[in-house]
């Protein structure tokens, strides 16, 4: 999987490259729109990450040019602009995702993963991780074969953790996914729900599945199962 990053802020480009490389991707980083277009013409990329403010033009223009060349790879816009107009404009120009800075690398890698997985996604209805099993159709949860009753919000939260098991999910990602934009900044609600979920899933078991990663967020820890 090869990813092109067009970002003029060198340090940010560097950290993005290192972060994505550590995930096992091949990454090229360029700093101008012209270089971005050249690279896109020359090599085959599975994904492009474009900053909107480039020294020689906007990321939107670059995205349009790339699309005009006939490239259909997913494009992720990474920008400091969070207004709706800009979002709409870029989605119309052919963007597949729009991420506002500051972004956690963990979140970015999940979004990259999601974009690369597009297409015939694996739609398993019953997911299993060690002793835990969830049924996405009936929204039922079992641990060691025993039913666990969850409220709709708790279920959504667990399912979200499940689908990204082994990865850290930040509180703001969880809020955005399970609640909505109006809860922006109200991340303490996540702690409360995680607490409840823990009581139902992990209480009385030696193996704790839900892990807190301080400063980063929460994850469903599946590493310890193998």
């Amino acid at each position, binding site marked *: 999987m090869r990813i092109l990053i067009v970002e003029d802020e060198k340090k940010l480009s560097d*950290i993005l490259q*290192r972060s994505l490389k550590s995930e096992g991707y091949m990454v090229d980083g360029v700093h101008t729109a012209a270089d971005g277009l050249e690279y896109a013409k020359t090599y085959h990329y599975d994904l492009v990450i474009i900053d909107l403010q480039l020294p020689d033009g906007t990321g939107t223009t670059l995205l349009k040019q790339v699309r005009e060349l006939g490239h259909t790879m997913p494009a992720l816009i990474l920008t400091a602009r*969070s207004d709706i107009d800009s979002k709409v404009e870029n989605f119309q120009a052919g963007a597949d995702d729009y991420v506002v800075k*500051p972004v956690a690398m963990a979140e970015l890698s999940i979004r990259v993963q999601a974009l690369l997985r597009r297409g015939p996604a694996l739609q398993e209805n019953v997911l299993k991780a060690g002793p835990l099993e969830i049924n996405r159709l009936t929204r039922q949860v079992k641990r060691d074969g025993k039913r666990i009753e969850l409220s709709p919000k708790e279920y959504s939260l667990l399912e979200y953790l499940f689908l990204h098991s082994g990865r850290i999910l930040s509180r703001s990602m969880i809020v955005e996914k399970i609640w*909505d934009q109006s809860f922006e*900044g*109200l*991340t303490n*609600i996540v702690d409360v729900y995680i607490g409840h979920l823990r009581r139902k899933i992990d209480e009385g078991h030696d193996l704790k599945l839900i892990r807190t990663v301080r400063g980063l967020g929460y994850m469903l820890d599946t590493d310890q199962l193998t």
Partner: protein
Amino acid sequence: MIFRSVTSRLIFFYCLLLVVLGGAFLAFTVLSFQHYTRETLTSILSVRAGEVWNISGGLLDQPIRLHDTIERRFAPESQDRFIRIRAGSAVLYQSGNPTSGEFSAKLVAIGPPVAEGQVSPVRVLGNLLLLSRSFRDPNGNLVTVDAGQSDLFAHALQQRLATSLFVGLPLLLVLAALAGVVLMRRALTPVEVMINAAETYTFNDPHKRLPTLHTEPRIEALGLALNRMLDRLDSAYSHASRFSADAAHELRTPLTIMRGELELVASGERLPSDVDNAISNALEEMTRLSGIVDSLITLSRMESLWGKQAHGPVDLTALAQETIEQMNLLAEEKQISLPRPSGPPVVVAGDRDRLKQILVNLLDNAIKYTPAGGRVAVQTGTNGDMGFVTVEDSGIGIDPSHHDRVFDRFYRVMPDRGDGGAGLGLAIVKSICNAHGGSVSLRSAPEVGSCFKVEIPLLPVAAESKMAAADAAAATTVAGK
């Protein structure tokens, strides 16, 4: 106190001026009238003395004829006239008392002698003006004719004139003062208009300016000068507001870089626990910083959106129920009762997500500052053409000294309280309310609790019924299929 107003001072001074001028006019009129009557009477008397001499010159030795002639010609008694003809100290003829009794003819003293052909100065004897003229008769004797006239009539006229002026002047003053009040009011109307406009000026609508009416150049100039001042204030204010938005924008990229670096380190090999702890702390603070940056950008966007917010129908009651549903657990954790509001729909015009953010922020605060076992109540309703939501808690309350400032950016009632807030939550609530043309107010007492009231304009009935009609039409179409 009342003399502090320009209107009353102006009217007072011009009334004073009117009194002085009126008094001077009165005195001048009366005096000149007096002078004029005296002059006229003098010349009349002088002429009359001549006439008396002309008709009586030849009759001095025939007292009966002299008497008859003068009586016929001058009728002194009925005309308030006095005529006396004397030669030296011998009186040849003297008219009787006037019928009006204005003077007594017998008491009219004989004046000093007058040389031949001369006219004596006028003497005033009570009401009588007296003038003597001497002639020499054919026998060479000096004959003096005294001619007199009562000036009581002139006096009466003079009195009348003075009285009418005395009565008229105060009347004139009252009328002038009234006219002055009316005129000043009219003249100050543009100022009143400007005051009303200035009272309603807020930075929520920074492009509003004072009206400049083209009636009075100086007042128009004042309006223009104030408007230029507003321009400068506006630009300073928007500069400050743009500054925080720009600063927040510029912080986003470095924040991402720092966060990325720390995340890479944190997700790397097992670290010594103190390093791990430090990185976790830094990451937590980074999250907080990102939150502040986001809040600042939300604030500046709300300010720029004033009045341009997309306005769809939002039911505040349903929104409150939904929000409470989502936040219930926060309250449950602290054993705080948070009942769902029941009531008829309150449909306002607004942006659903933003209005929800108001509720989320207010509920979060209410739960945060209410001790365990307390109560948070949400109510919705309408008040005139406004819909409202109140969020009331039985919490620690806010001292009245903070009420004015709790909605300011970065203002925190208890800065030492380590609750992680940056003091932007209520500022965001206020900016969203303003962007919707609404308002937020606070009623609170320490140790009793706080009640925040948010008011948002209701969706106009016309728009609502139109939408209901559209819904009905859609329903029919679906049913028809």
